[in-house]
């Protein structure tokens, strides 16, 4: 299920449009991940405040979203481009890769509610494929 030229164009066009809202998108997606899938909170036991509006959630949401946005520019070689981030997730953070699917789902939900006109079915399928490829590349160094 690799990215066609059409997918790459759809992804790039859509994310260029919404990039300015990176903090809102990222923090909402992260907040929903923590709230709707409480098992994900286990990775953040060192945070004081895990509630949706918390400054830590906001800041980290932006970090995650910036990662996604940088991946948009690497679509021709996601594995190579995300090598360092993969090492980070595999060796330092050791996040179970099953969780990538969870945050991806919440990203889609947030994009849909924030940009209902732009997040058409065609954009949805390309973004879903893109996020799946990002997750795969992030999982690369796990074993």
């Amino acid at each position: 299920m690799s990215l066609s030229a059409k997918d790459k164009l759809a992804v790039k066009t859509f994310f260029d449009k919404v990039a300015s809202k990176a903090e809102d998108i990222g923090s909402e997606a992260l907040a929903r991940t923590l709230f709707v899938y409480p098992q994900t909170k286990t990775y953040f036991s060192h945070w004081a405040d895990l509630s949706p509006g918390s400054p830590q959630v906001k800041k980290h949401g932006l970090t995650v979203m910036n990662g996604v946005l940088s991946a948009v520019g690497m679509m021709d070689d996601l594995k190579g481009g995300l090598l360092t981030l993969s090492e980070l997730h595999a060796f330092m953070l050791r996040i179970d890769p099953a969780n990538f699917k969870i945050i991806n789902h919440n990203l889609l939900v947030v994009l849909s509610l924030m940009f209902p006109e732009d997040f058409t079915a065609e954009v949805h399928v390309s973004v879903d494929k893109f996020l799946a490829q990002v997750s795969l590349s992030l999982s690369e160094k796990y074993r």
Partner: protein
Amino acid sequence: MVEWTDFERTTIQDIFSKMNYEVVGQQALARCLIVYPWTQRYFGNFGNLYNAAAIMGNPMVAAHGKVVLHGLDRAVKNMDDIKAAYAELSVLHSEKLHVDPDNFRLLGDCLTIVVAAQLGAGFTPEVQAAFQKFLAVVVSSLRRQYH
């Protein structure tokens, strides 16, 4: 027996009482067929499903989307025993329609995304949690009679 909080019950009743079944049903099924094209395997007689535009404009998809969405009414009306309420439909999907139960989750995800677009900011994390819990119970009940 699934435990529902008052908030969850109210949220589910609210979403479905305000639901535009025609629009949301069509959108959710069309999106499922577009985003997960292998689901088209169950709709060989639906005519033109060749591309997103065709799927979006297909009247059989629209009609069937509405049927499927109304299928959820059974759960909305019987929240305290969804398992029993879906026993018959579960047998139907398994024995007659031969639908891989993984598809229930895929359609559920598309429905969540369509409802999110409809409700916008009103689709808060709390509402999302209630809605997804509801769909998870429905999906589990639909899987129940498979053997």
